[in-house]
């Protein structure tokens, strides 16, 4: 059982090729990290998996536990178990966080079944406590006027509430101070489980000090150019992304 990406090619609507054959297998229970310089295609990979309309898949496949996810709409992929923590989460004016998360959970229930409001708030508050979020947060409009750190914590809260099979975290560490980063990592670590796979997308090694991945992949110019264990992060830290040039040229 895994999220399997096979020779994936994708372009922008204008035809510019961004993903040039990505192959990656993320079994349930494992945490994989993709590192790479800006513009290498990391964020594009996450959006293509989630089904963003701004990209055209020109080749390859993505399957989740054997099911072709390209046959599913954005919301169907979500309900089937794919979660994307956004690098830049949208603001939704006038919609409270509590109502938003509740709507997302309600959408997962069979027709006619109503989410138990009391149980919902118990669960929500427990997760918020773990992420050290103020109770006032439930009444605030989704991401509106949130600091960078609050937005990222909100993404992790949603991850914890929706309990996906596969979670993709797109640059969740960017814009976080060290305290916020620790809290976010605590949330992610709490969600590590045998039935859940993670794909962490990051530019910096910093996040991986707090969430130790099982595997690290280096992406450059639309391809995975190197894969290895957690020690690969330190190598990158030492040499920077400069040494990738040699890899991609080779």
């Amino acid at each position, binding site marked *: 059982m895994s999220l399997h990406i096979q020779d994936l090619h994708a372009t922008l609507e204008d035809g510019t090729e961004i993903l040039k054959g990505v192959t990656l297998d993320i079994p349930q229970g494992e945490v994989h990290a993709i590192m790479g310089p800006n513009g290498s295609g990391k964020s594009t990979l996450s959006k293509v998996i989630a089904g963003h309309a701004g990209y055209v898949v020109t080749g390859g496949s993505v399957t989740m536990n054997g099911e072709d996810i390209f046959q599913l709409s954005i919301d169907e992929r979500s309900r089937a178990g794919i979660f994307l923590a956004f690098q830049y989460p949208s603001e*939704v004016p006038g919609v409270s966080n509590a109502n938003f*998360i509740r709507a997302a959970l309600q959408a997962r229930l069979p027709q006619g079944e109503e989410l138990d*409001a009391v149980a919902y708030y118990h669960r929500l508050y427990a997760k918020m406590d773990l992420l050290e979020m103020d109770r006032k947060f439930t009444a605030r409009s989704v991401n509106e006027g949130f600091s960078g750190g609050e937005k990222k914590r909100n993404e992790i809260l949603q991850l914890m509430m929706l309990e996906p099979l596969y979670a993709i975290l797109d640059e969740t560490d960017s814009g976080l101070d060290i305290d916020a980063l620790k809290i976010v990592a605590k949330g992610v670590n709490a969600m590590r489980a045998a039935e859940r796979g993670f794909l962490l997308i990051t530019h910096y090694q910093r996040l991986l000090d707090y969430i130790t991945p099982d595997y690290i992949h280096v992406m450059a110019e639309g391809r995975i150019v190197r894969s290895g264990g957690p020690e690969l992060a330190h190598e990158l830290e030492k040499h920077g992304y400069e040494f990738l040039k040699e890899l991609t040229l080779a």
Partner: protein
Amino acid sequence: MSYQPNSTLDAETHDAISIDRSKGDFTFPERNKLDAGRGLTDKTVDYICDVKNDPPWLREFRHKALRVFLDKPMPTHWASKDLENINFDEIRYYLSDGEKPKRSWDDVPEDIKRTFDRLGIPQQERAFLAGVEAQYDSEAAYSNVKEELTKQGVIFVNSTEGLHQHEEIFRPWFGKVIPTSDNKFSALNSAVFSGGSFIYIPKGLKLKQPLQAYFRINSENFGQFERTLIIADEGSELMYMEGCTAPKFETATLHSAVVELVALKGAKIQYVTVQNWSSNVYNLVTKRGLAMEDAEVRWIDCNIGSRLTIKYPGVIMKGRRARGEVISIALANTGQHQDTGAKMIHAADETTSNIVSKSISVGKGRATYRGQVHIPKHLKGCKNNTECDALLINSNSRTDTYPAITVKGNRHSTQHEASVSQVSEEMLFYLMQRGLNQGQAMSLAVNGFINDLVREFPMEYSVELKRLIDLEMEGSVG
């Protein structure tokens, strides 16, 4: 009042308020014994006067109004060209079964009773209302107010009963806030009006529960012309709510009401409308309130239905420190034009007005905001705040804003803000990535856009409003 989730409502209240478009789309065979026939002449007016046993002064009033209606040209310089499609010769101006309004639902004829049952009116009355009037085509079929209120001097009857039985209160204010010649449609209403409410709240009495009127059109090629006059005596308070539906006929239907509110010294009137006419109804309504010293008139107006709505609720602030407010939500789907707005006429010192308008245009729907704020030079200390926000959903929709703020003199303060926004692709992607389908995502975004205004509606109506918007949104992305 803050928004509360559905689960806090008991089942009966919930059923009572769950009015939607499909729920209104049914019709019963016509049972009209009284029919003024098609077209509008002096004979039509006489027919109505005879049927209603109008006093001579009213007969004269109606005939004069007919002259004004016939003489006034159709508004063309600003209004929608669609007005030209109304064929006044094909419309039936008065239809009724000749029955007097009943005080008990048990006495209401079976098919009419079933109509209002299906619309949930008797359930609503039991759940949270102080009084109800239910109008079916030209006349009220049911009208009742809680006995204790009658004992306290509250009058809540239809306009005919009002002018017959309470002429001394009715006549001095009738046609004073909105003169016959105000516009072509106020003249039309003045000539042929029937039904609508007459309400009087005695001095100092503050109603805790709202009064409600429900307007139902059952017959094709029909024009409904209700006339409402509400007088809140000094220091009194009331909330009045109106709802409306009609089946979807093949031909156009006309609804042209005149609503006059009078808030005497220190009185407060809140007038709440949830307009959900079917999409073949021309809804051309004139609504205006008069606020005397320290009085307040608030129009809380939501337009979801109709083919074309033209309506600019207004407040004339005639007494010192009077306040006027219009809270307006308009949703224009494909085939609809919501031409709504507000008129604020400052006529005394230290008067304050507030306009908050939010419109949503979907598909080829068109929403127009027209505002008029008038503060003359000789006054001092007047304030106006105007906010207009428009939300566009897909590129075909259209929104226009025409604010006209005339402020003379420099001892006043005005503020105007307008914005146009869209439900962005990125927002939809975000919402859908959390598992909401496109319709649900759209509904959530739209409900968020109007959320601060929906809070102004009574809770029972805000839940209904949310349901109506959910339905519209899911239908529009289908």
